[in-house]
């Protein structure tokens, strides 16, 4: 069965430090992966999708099929990046979410 794992529940970094939020998936088919973010007191929203190969708010994520990973990276973290981040695997019309990682960026 498909599964998404985010091994870190909490990641704490200082402002300006690089950040990497890990996401691993298990799925036998061709995956479509996403990162969703929830800022404090805001609703969950799409951050980026692997198929677009885009950079949003300085974040990038590369799909590594060999390692079945889709880690989210940013070279220099900002305080406004503090939020909950969820990795999600799309199969058909449904999303399977990981457990989420809380990113805290300290000044």
């Amino acid at each position, binding site marked *: 069965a498909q599964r*998404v794992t*985010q091994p870190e*529940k909490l990641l704490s970094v200082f402002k300006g430090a690089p950040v990497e939020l890990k996401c691993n998936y298990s799925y036998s088919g061709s995956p*479509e992966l*996403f990162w969703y973010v929830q800022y404090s007191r805001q*609703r*969950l*929203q*799409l951050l980026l*999708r692997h*198929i*677009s190969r885009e950079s949003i708010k300085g974040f990038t994520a590369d799909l590594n099929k060999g390692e079945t990973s889709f880690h989210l990276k940013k070279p220099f973290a900002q305080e406004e990046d503090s939020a909950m981040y*969820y990795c999600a695997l*799309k199969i058909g*019309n*449904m*999303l*399977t*979410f*990981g*457990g*989420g990682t809380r990113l805290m960026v300290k000044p």
Partner: protein
Amino acid sequence: NAGVTQTPKFRILKIGQSMTLQCAQDMNHNYMYWYRQDPGMGLKLIYYSVGAGITDKGEVPNGYNVSRSTTEDFPLRLELAAPSQTSVYFCASSYPGVNNNEQFFGPGTRLTVL
């Protein structure tokens, strides 16, 4: 556009009570979803709908019912509330084929069953 709206924001139920969580969207999205999020866990899909009159079970449908009589509304019904249903409930909607079926989420309903 209001996007996806949910009511109520908070609710406390007693065991065995029933209630309906309301969800509406004004984006003319065909697809709508209900998720629950338990503390420290990811979102789990309860039910989803690909259009008016069509619903299907997700990963954790037991104890819930849904209906989709209009494109805009997708209420979630709890018939006999149990403490295990204490959670935050999120409704979402999407339009197929647009932006990889990006889902738009409501603000959530925090439900406590005592």
